[in-house]
């Protein structure tokens, strides 16, 4: 899972970076000392960001006010040294957990597990609704036309700024969406997020070498943290 950290204290940002390096499931993409600095990055890279570590007490406005400015906020782990602010956190459905400073590693690890479960649950809810509709396809908006793409036809999806490239063997579709939205629409039994910028169709993998997978003529990166999970998903001898 990829995240960003927003906290005005450099010490806290460094501690979260350090704990993330010790944890196999989380990568800090970037950290910011103010929500204003984070806003631009978040807008441009929303496809790559799975969640945010967000401080409540920030220079320009509070973490809660920052969340209110986002139209589709990513899930959040709040950080603060005010236990009494935890109650307010329950008003926000995207706040998954609340970490008190100074952050203990065992508590940090629990938060990461909670976040992982939250993201998996969202993905599987989407998958369940897909199966209820007996859907095996995706409709995408390309140049004001809704185009049907069968899951079987998709080779891989690549993040491309505020867009995603949906690559089939025949064609590439540039669609205005985020990686997390696309990931939630695809069955996890069939697709795998191999890297913060790539989702691959497992059945299209030709071979895997080191930290790359060959799909068609494309070499797709596999992040170190994801490799073990990918290996588990493959039907290996």
């Amino acid at each position: 899972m990829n995240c960003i950290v927003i906290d005005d204290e450099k010490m806290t940002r460094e501690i979260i970076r350090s704990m993330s390096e010790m944890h196999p499931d989380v990568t800090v993409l970037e950290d910011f000392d103010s929500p204003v600095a984070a806003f631009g990055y978040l807008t441009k890279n929303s496809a790559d960001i799975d969640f945010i570590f967000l401080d409540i007490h920030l220079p320009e406005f509070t973490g809660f006010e920052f969340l209110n400015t986002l139209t589709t906020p990513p899930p959040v782990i709040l950080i603060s040294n005010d236990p009494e602010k935890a109650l307010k956190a329950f008003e926000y459905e995207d706040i998954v957990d609340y970490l008190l400073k100074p952050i203990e590693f065992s508590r940090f690890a629990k938060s990461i597990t909670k976040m992982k479960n939250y993201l998996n649950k969202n993905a599987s809810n989407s998958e369940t609704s897909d199966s209820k509709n007996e859907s095996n396809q995706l409709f995408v908006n390309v140049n004001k036309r809704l185009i049907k793409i069968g899951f079987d036809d998709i080779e891989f999806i690549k993040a491309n700024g505020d867009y995603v490239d949906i690559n089939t063997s025949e064609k590439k579709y540039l669609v205005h969406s985020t990686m997390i939205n696309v990931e939630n629409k695809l069955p996890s039994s069939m697709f795998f997020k191999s890297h913060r910028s790539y989702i691959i169709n497992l059945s299209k993998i030709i071979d895997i070498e080191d930290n790359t997978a060959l799909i068609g003529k494309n070499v797709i990166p596999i992040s170190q943290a994801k490799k073990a999970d990918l290996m588990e998903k493959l039907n290996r001898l």
Partner: protein
Amino acid sequence: MKLDLSYLEEVSGGDQDLFQSLLVIMQDELSTVWEEFELYRTQTDYEGMHRVVHTLKSKLDIMKLENEAVFIRQMELNLGNETLEIDDHENLRILLEELNDKIKNI
């Protein structure tokens, strides 16, 4: 005042370079607290003073300075009510002076 750095040691996971860099961050951040506080005080900016004191609180918690943290919590409450006691102001100065002195000599 006795600084307990076991939290920073634990977070560093035995990595001495990381421990040192966290210590430097702590020194740097603490060295500007008084200056920042005074700037907001001269502007009668209670929100700014409150934020500075709030940030200091987490540093005291990191170094397990419990008594000092109790004082800072009370001061934070007072500033939240737009009150700055003369004694609090002076005690903050003494606390930061001592803290900066101790942490520089680690």
